């Protein structure tokens, strides 16, 4: 495998070189997606199973579109319609999907570690599209591609040594974790800011060069990248924080954003709630990259589907291609 892994379960186990490779492989797909005709036959006859045990619109559509543009078919499992409601276990549901012989499974689940359980039982590759509060690897990859593109036309070596501020409920954010793992492989420095019960001390031991700063103004000083997390209003087992409290302490406003570097960029995994975690002017302003994130997400996912389905074979390949 040129990419060096069978399943993509998390960023934590990838090397910086593997990540650079994946980002580089996404570039041809960025170009492809700008063409008038966006349909390939590369994965014709292949099937991608989309097993979303947690509701999702954006990520599911992104993966579905990526598969379709490569010419693959999709099988769609959505939690609401699934037999999980009838008491079927996760493994049995996945085995049923597997019996229809897909070539790859994209999985999102509300339990951390669920894709690991599944990947251990299936021969086909598994992409983790988000597991509990653990990781969301394709999100971190598309964020990195966005950062790289924004910071330099030449698109090389622009991920090194960044100062990154992450704002919000970090304890429960898989997007934050994956970004921490990815950017730390490029020697980033992190400042974490959010309601204190959701930015606990143990986050500082996740990767090197992490500090916490309770006040957003201080946390933004000198930042190259600001990652704004969405706010889950109601969280199981947690008393909620009143929205006004959150806005007062942690909304990214234009004034606060000025504390960051003038060329700082703002990332948000979406969906945004304008007026909650992000001020409308910032959301729609020149520093915001949210739309590029979506476009890049499609390119990253196309690259992954291509590499993992086509490149997944490690057994005998023919000696030569026929030119």
């Amino acid at each position, binding site marked *: 495998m040129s990419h060096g892994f069978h399943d993509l379960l998390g960023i934590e186990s990838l090397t910086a070189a593997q990540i650079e490779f994946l980002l580089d492989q996404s570039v041809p797909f960025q170009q492809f997606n700008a063409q008038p005709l966006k349909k390939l036959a590369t994965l014709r006859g292949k099937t991608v199973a989309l097993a979303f045990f947690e509701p999702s619109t954006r990520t599911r559509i992104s993966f579905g579109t990526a598969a379709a543009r490569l010419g693959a078919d999709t099988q769609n499992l959505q939690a609401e319609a699934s037999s999980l409601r009838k008491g079927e276990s*996760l493994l049995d549901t996945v085995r049923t999907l597997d019996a229809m012989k897909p070539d790859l499974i994209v999985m999102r689940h*509300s339990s951390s570690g669920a894709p690991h359980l599944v990947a251990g039982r299936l021969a086909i590759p598994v992409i983790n599209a988000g597991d509990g509060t653990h990781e969301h690897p394709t999100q971190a990859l598309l964020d990195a591609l966005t950062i790289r593109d924004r910071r330099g036309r030449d698109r090389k070596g622009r991920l090194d040594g960044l100062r990154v501020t992450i704002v919000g409920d970090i304890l429960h954010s898989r997007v934050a*974790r994956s970004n921490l793992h990815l950017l730390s492989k490029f020697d980033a420095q992190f400042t974490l800011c959010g309601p204190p019960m959701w930015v606990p001390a143990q*986050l500082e031991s996740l990767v090197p060069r992490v500090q916490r700063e309770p006040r957003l103004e201080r946390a933004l000083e000198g930042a190259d990248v600001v990652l704004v997390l969405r706010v889950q209003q109601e969280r199981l087992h947690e008393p909620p924080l009143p929205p006004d409290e959150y806005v007062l302490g942690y909304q990214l406003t234009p004034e606060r954003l000025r504390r960051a570097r003038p060329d700082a960029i703002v990332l948000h995994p979406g969906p945004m709630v304008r007026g909650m975690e992000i001020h409308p002017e910032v959301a729609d302003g020149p520093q915001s990259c949210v739309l590029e994130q979506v476009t890049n997400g499609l390119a990253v996912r196309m690259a992954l589907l291509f590499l993992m389905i086509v490149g997944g074979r490690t057994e005998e390949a023919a000696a030569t291609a026929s030119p």
Partner: protein
Amino acid sequence: MLLIKNGRVLDPASKTDASLEVLLEGDRIARVGQGLTPPGAEVLDARGLCVAPGFIDLHCHLREPGFEISETIETGARAAARGGFTAVCPMANTNPVHDHATVTRAILKRAREAGGAQVWPIGAASRGLKGEALAEIAAMREAGIVAVSDDGKPIATAKLLRQVMDYCRALDLTVMDHCEDASLFAGCVMREGPRSAQLGLRGMPPQTESIAVARGIQVCELTGCRFHVAHLSARASLELVREAKRKGLPVTCEVTPHHFTLIDEDVTYDTHHKMNPPLASRSDREALIEGLRDGTVDAIATDHAPHAAHLKDVEFDCAPFGLTGFETALALALTELVHAGRVPLLRAVELFTTGPAHVLGPSSPARGRRAIAPGEPADLTLFSFDRAWTFRAADSASKSRNTPFDDRAFRGGPAATVIAGRLAFET
């Protein structure tokens, strides 16, 4: 008559560690000494083995009635005997809940039919384990329970705990509490710390346990009833128990083998690492081992919690808590505590024998003691001090295989178990 020769007799009650012979007659110990040659006695050659009083496990789950898919009284009692236990105390979270005397009698009947380790059941504190009304404790006492607990869950409120303890004091019953603050526990699946942050699993702080330990100690002070902390796992809890003992309160505690062996850093998405209380920090483990050594901890108890394979083969969040423990307890104690030089051998034997007997109090079948002396029950645990062996879950007598210790190498382990004068197990 059964004569046990050539063994190294370890009797904590008399502080004996010597090469002695033990003669059993019927279900009692007849004589202990040298050169005993009774005519017509069967001889058990214990060369190279230690001979200790019969081990007692204060805390286990036998799943019958109601959850026989994971274990039955018969398979559990046999697994216990293979682990060197001569008596085990199963908790009441069966189905139906063991909260009235009919269930007590049914359990004891099944145990008599099964053979293997003796079963000394623990009755529920509250009806249905619902934490509202008292269970039929006096009737269960008469039928044969040895202690009271709502384990699986904590006793729901301080008010109920006080009622239960007032009631049990008069009955000379120990109250065992699964110490846990429900609000801090809710939704958590492991110990809060760097590992839970890395795995993205919800973690609970040590105060989840110690807050409830503090509650129990204070209600103990209020009522004077014996209070026992089940599966103590945190330094903070241990310090509270130490202080309570210093004040002369009748507070005791037990520690499980997995808590003195593994820590939170060992947790992966493998559900064999999911138990309650969860694997704790390195510092907690240090404190527990010190407590095992210095007497703050009274007993090692397994909290043997079997679960059928398909129940554990799910996402970490959804898996039930618990691991099996009968057949690895002694081996872990010898390997991790005694051979590691942390706890002397005789003290380790205390933790399986006189300690548990003391916790149960003078009215239990053990009469508050465990000894190798004439007149004492013919319950003996014979074990090898340092035989090298590997535990394989597939060979276990339990119906379940949920253990993180599969394929683990040990120094020392059970060799033979004598219960009421009969050989119940032999390697």
